[in-house]
């Protein structure tokens, strides 16, 4: 149990907290800053990477992910500096995946070469919609044509490219989404993240909805129909869902995200970043201050931005369920068998057709995945 993380792998997450503008649906830790001292931020991020790496020397790093915010606002040199720091005390796996989230705009596409030279081999583009009016509604700064061109550049520069779409939007019909999704699949992608629009607290959409605006969002039935249709169409296109909202051709899954869902170890650096790290048999949850200024000053003044809390055995079980059941592959049956109560509850969910159990693994069925919060709710231990 103590060294379980080894099976799932080891990853580094780097959070770049800045955006040019806040999107009305986004509740991530992002900030709009007038000017950013890139060199200073790169130094701080690299110093955090070094600090954790010195505690865990020799670990094999399977993935690095630059998320945000908008990491495609980073200078390629900053990306390179962080990656270099990660190689000093960790060993890069031969097939290491280095992903950077990028906005699909021409300014950013111009930096793709630089990122590739720094070591990035996969980009995840925030395309979000293939309709210009919808992009405007979502507060995006790019248009569909520009996004497609950026996607083309990315395909030529990186081995692997994914993009995100947001659906179940205001006034979106089932057929309209079907057409848009088919266009996306026609773009010769091998990985798609397809998220249903969720109105999160702390966003502009939340406030607008509370004020009685944001009408025409799909009801639960339509949203469920959209989800089912998405799975069908993607499956036909050989882009099976391997997770609740993620689709890939076999072998093209995001290795980085699989480490989260398979509950491996990951180091989180940057403002608001979270990590899970196993040290001498104890599993730690780490968290960094979310405000960029606070994070930066902690790094510069104390040499350590993160706080760590030891996870209890129940926390670990609950997190494994929560993350693992998101995956189509499910979790190892041994995990359930080790917990008699869980095993019993899982058996009842199998009876109700919400979970399956075969070949030594257990997971949520298609119906169960649509109700995953409830399924997980049934399984959580006290």
């Amino acid at each position: 149990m103590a060294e379980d993380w080894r099976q799932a792998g080891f990853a580094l997450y780097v959070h770049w907290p800045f955006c040019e503008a806040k999107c009305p649906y986004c509740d991530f830790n992002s900030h709009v800053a007038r000017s950013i001292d890139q060199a200073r931020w790169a130094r701080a991020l690299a110093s955090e990477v070094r600090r954790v790496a010195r505690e865990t020397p020799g670990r094999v790093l399977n993935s690095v992910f630059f998320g945000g915010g908008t990491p495609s606002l980073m200078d390629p040199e900053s990306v390179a500096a962080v990656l270099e720091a990660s190689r000093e005390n960790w060993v890069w796996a031969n097939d290491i995946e280095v992903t950077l989230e990028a906005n699909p705009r021409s300014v950013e596409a111009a930096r793709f070469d630089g990122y590739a030279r720094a070591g990035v081999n996969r980009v995840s583009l925030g395309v979000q919609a293939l309709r210009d009016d919808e992009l405007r509604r979502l507060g995006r700064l790019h248009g569909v044509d520009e996004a497609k061109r950026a996607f083309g550049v990315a395909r030529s520069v990186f081995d692997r490219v994914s993009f995100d779409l947001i659906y179940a939007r205001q006034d979106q019909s089932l057929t309209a989404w079907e057409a848009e999704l088919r266009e996306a699949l026609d773009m010769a992608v091998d990985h798609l993240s397809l998220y249903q629009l969720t109105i999160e607290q702390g966003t502009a959409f939340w406030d607008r909805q509370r004020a009685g605006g944001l009408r025409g969002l799909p009801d639960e039935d339509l949203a469920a129909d959209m989800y089912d249709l998405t799975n069908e169409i993607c499956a036909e296109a050989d882009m099976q869902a391997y997770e609740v909202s993620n689709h890939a051709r076999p072998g093209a899954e995001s290795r980085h995200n699989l480490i989260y869902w398979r509950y491996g170890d990951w180091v989180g650096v940057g403002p608001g970043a979270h990590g899970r790290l196993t040290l001498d048999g104890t599993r730690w949850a780490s968290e960094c201050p979310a405000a960029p200024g606070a994070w930066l000053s902690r790094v510069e003044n104390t040499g350590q931005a993160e706080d760590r809390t030891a996870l209890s055995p129940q926390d670990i079980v609950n997190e494994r369920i929560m993350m693992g059941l998101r995956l189509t592959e499910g979790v190892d049956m041994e995990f359930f068998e080790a917990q008699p109560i869980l095993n019993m509850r899982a058996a009842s969910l199998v009876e109700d057709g919400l979970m399956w159990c075969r070949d030594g693994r257990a997971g949520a069925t298609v119906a169960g995945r649509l109700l995953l919060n409830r399924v997980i709710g049934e399984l959580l231990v006290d």
Partner: protein
Amino acid sequence: MSTPLSRIRNFSIVAHIDHGKSTLADRLIQLTGTVAERDMKEQMLDAMDIERERGITIKANTVRIEYPAKDGQTYILNLIDTPGHVDFAYEVSRSMRAVEGSLLVVDATQGVEAQTLANVYTAIDANHEIVPVLNKIDLPAAEPERVKEQIEDVIGIDASEACLISAKTGIGIPDVLEAIVKRLPPPHSGDPDAPLKAMLVDSWYDSYLGVVVLVRIMDGTLRKGDNIRMMRTGGKYGVDKLAVLKPAMTDVKELGPGEIGVFTGSIKQVRDTRVGDTITHDKRPADKALPGFKPSVPVVFCGLFPVDANEFEDLRDAIEKLALNDASFTYEMETSAALGFGFRCGFLGLLHLEVVRDRLEREYDIDLITTAPSVVYHLFLKDGTQLELHNPADMPDLSTVDHIEEPRIKATILVPDEYLGDVLKLCQDRRGIQLDLTYAGPRAMVVYDLPLNEVVFDFYDRLKSVTKGYASFDYQMEGYREDNLVKMQVLVNDEPVDALSMMVHRDRAEMRGRAMCEKLKDLIPRHMFKIPIQAAIGGKVIARETLSALRKDVTAKCYGGDATRKKKLLEKQKAGKKKMRQFGKVEIPQEAFISALKMDS
């Protein structure tokens, strides 16, 4: 020496809620310097939080005011501030018997209300001299001439010499004091040397003094140290402390005829004292008790359950303590599959129910679930026995029942004409029988014979909503009548939910059943399977709704940075489930019961 009768005036104030009764009492106390300015707080006499908050009087309160009148004499004015609500009609009638006159306070902007009527008639029954007082005359909307006319038309008393006041600003208060002395009669008679005859007007529990008894001396003299006897209950006590209320307790040596005061005498529970009882000396008793004593009988019952099952013992303690101070409130333990352990409690009426519930929640800090209020049915069984049914859950098999009788009330409603049609329709819909319809100025006065059961359901709410709040309503019990009554059960996913059972008229069962099923459909959260919600009489389903299965509840994004937050969210959701009650596979949140059973306030 006790005060001569000619210099005593005992009176009460009759008024509708919000018409300024307590404010006027405050002004009288203030102007006569009875309470030092710095000790004055709003609504001096309403001691309970609930009374102050709602502006209503629940317990009778008393104050003795010394007033130097314009004729140069100092008068003792005893004000008994009576409860203004029908639930406490008996207490009101007793308080009225303890005084000789009333101030009828009417809001000059609103006019006479139904509650005022009931209480003013009680005062007239008690042979009171009545001085009309029009309050709020400082407001631009005041129409004193119109309201005077209305008082004369509706109540039939002369209002030409009504005092015009503003209790808020103090205008006219000296005139009220003079009117009390000049126009209200002194106590009629009373022999200080006759055998003691004192009326028990009220009693309450004081944590320092024990039970405090408020009495009005009719005949004889009560002295500190006397041994007294309660003529109805037979209880014997020594008078430890004798005092008058100013409103703070001020010791006196004796109380003579016409006087009002309090005594203590190591009485353990308020239950041992009955409003309306006659107090006399043990050694030299009066030959006859005062007339008109009635023990109080609860008319509305409901279950009270703690929201948190662990608070059952706390609830028991609280109810026992409260009952010590309220003889009119009854309780017995009850268990419910839906709600666990609790108590079936009996009340004088809906306001009494609410007051008790509020006090339990506030003073004892216990969250409660209140089940649908039910009235007392008389069950006549085929074998000739007769039963009182307080709880629909106790309804015996229908085949053994010959017939059922239910309590009826006489309701008086005052309403502006434009809403009259709606009010008549409401009363007809509730199985009402019209007894009278008259006009009093711009308002209609309708009198209906209604089943109490239909009134405890949501009558107040409906009345308020169809008349936009312009109707006033009051009622009195009228006795029992046979009708076609049945027990309606509610089944959720085919499991009966006992807490939702109710007695209904057969003709109204479908409607009530449908309303309940529709309400529950909105209140029960969707589950991962579909849930039938049914109302049934015996084995026959009379209404049905289906709560469809939940289809989607999944978090779109959950990555490494979300683990902590999403886990907390799911754990919170799970903790929330613990507050649910389980019926087979269905979990029903506590709030669903509370809302489904929610009664009008």
